[in-house]
């Protein structure tokens, strides 16, 4: 099995400039996190709000650079602060954001949203770009009638499907999903998670899946990393972490979460329907 992405002691500090009354200070958002994910596998990153998950996601997807540490993607060390990214490297890693209402440009039609990555990174003719966009739209469960619509005409779940389609246009090997379903209804969550699982099989995708919902993590993860104040306090296979948590924070996290895997999500929906 080949390793797709590897992080070694990744550190990220934010310098918050001071004002008249405040002193400048440094936020240590990520404090030396290491991980590695093999092809076709899913690493889930769990942790409470503000523990540095999104910061790590932006580093892995090469949006921001790390303050220190190494990021190795398909065996190549990448540092966007030192050398500009090649288009080749760019297309290997894509991201899905948490808020489906903020991740699509409100002034761009869906067809253009999907074709754009190809327009920028390839010299494919427009007709072929549109064909591929259309095919991808179908793959994520939307139809050709959606091609010329604007983002505000879609529901949150549909938007997230569009975001997924766009991320896959460049044939990436690694997809970073930053809480991709936490803004969605439970029933829609299950649909999107199933779609993600199907796509992972079909395209042999590697996922880094960020979440604070343990039921979702239990459903999708192969390996789990628990973050706490910028540190990885727990890291192991799903079975190991769930059955035998080592760190105190993980134990309280598990104790505080109602058991809710996809089966119990379904059960809850059924109960809701029965009650209504």
């Amino acid at each position, binding site marked *: 099995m080949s390793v797709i992405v590897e992080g070694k002691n990744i550190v990220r500090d934010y310098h918050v400039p001071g004002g008249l009354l405040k002193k400048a200070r440094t936020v240590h958002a990520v404090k030396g996190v290491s991980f590695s994910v093999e092809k076709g596998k899913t690493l889930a990153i769990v942790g409470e709000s503000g523990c540095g998950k999104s910061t790590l996601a*932006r580093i892995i*997807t*090469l*949006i921001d650079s790390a303050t220190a540490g190494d990021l190795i993607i398909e065996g190549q060390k990448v540092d966007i602060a030192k050398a500009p*990214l090649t*288009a080749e490297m*760019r*297309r290997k*890693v*894509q*991201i899905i*954001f*948490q*808020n489906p209402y*903020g*991740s*699509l*440009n*409100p*002034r761009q039609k869906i067809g253009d949203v999907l074709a*754009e*990555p190809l327009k*920028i*990174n390839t010299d494919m003719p427009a007709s072929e770009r549109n064909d591929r966009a259309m095919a991808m739209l179908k793959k994520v469960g939307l139809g050709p009638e959606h091609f010329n619509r604007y983002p*505000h005409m879609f529901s949150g779940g549909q938007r997230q499907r569009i*975001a997924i389609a*766009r991320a896959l*246009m*460049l044939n990436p090997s690694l997809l970073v999903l930053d809480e991709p379903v936490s803004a969605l209804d439970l029933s829609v969550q299950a649909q999107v998670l199933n779609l993600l699982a199907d796509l992972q099989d079909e395209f042999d995708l590697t996922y880094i899946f960020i979440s604070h919902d343990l039921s979702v993590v239990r459903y999708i993860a192969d390996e789990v990393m628990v973050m706490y104040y910028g540190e990885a306090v727990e890291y192991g296979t799903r079975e190991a972490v769930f059955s035998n948590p080592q760190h105190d924070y993980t134990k309280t996290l598990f104790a505080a979460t109602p058991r809710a895997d996809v089966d119990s999500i379904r059960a809850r929906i059924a109960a809701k329907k029965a009650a209504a």
Partner: protein
Amino acid sequence: MSRLFLRSPEAVAGTIILALLVAMALAAPWLFPRDPLAIAGPAMLPPFQDWTIPLGTDRLGRDVLSGLFHGARTSLAVGLAAAATSIVVGVLVGTIAGFAGGWVDEVLMRVTDAFQTVPGFLLALAFVSVAGPSLGVVVVAIALGAWTQPARITRAEVLSIRERDYVAGARVIGMHPAEIAFREVLPNALPPVLALSSVIVAAAVLTEAALSFLGLGDPNRVTWGGMIAEGRAVLRSAPFLSIVPGIALVLTVLGVYLVGEGAVEASAVKRGNA
């Protein structure tokens, strides 16, 4: 949107006023093909005496109505051109400052500050006195004092929009930063700036009039400000010479302002409904 717009009485009134003014400006060369600066009859003819010169003549015997029509051309042309120039420059500066950040932002905003601390009219005066009065110079002179506000507003918008996920997403698919700034960020930052445009146009029309009043307008064109200044010398014996162009000026500014208010209101209602 247009139906919402026409529902407010202010917007309708403003639209009618502006439509009349535009019609005046466009019709001027056909209705008054003679040079409006040429002598048309006896000097200081009061209004409603001679029906070929309905609004009478000024001290030099020039047709007041013809001046009013040709003056509408100058006022609107200069007002719109100056406003467009200041909005384009302001939006460019604001986008670059907000998007680039760092020292670029610092430098551009200090320059903006510098321009903003000098009153716009003084800046225009100084510029015209140095560069000489001509239509183009007047446009630039007015824009010189008016671009800072759109620049500030655009920068503030851009600062918030550049943190949106779709901007990060554009970076992840490898879009060039300049393209991100002008295709992803700028269009979404525009609405509040455009809402301001009516105020900028109105201010530009007034500044143009003030410059002409002080004799710094293009001497080869009739302007309302120039007509008011011209009438001032005989204000007691022939007040209509100043009052008529004065009313035209007030109506123009009012019309622009009402249309702007109506548009802002309509878009607010639309957003509220969405």
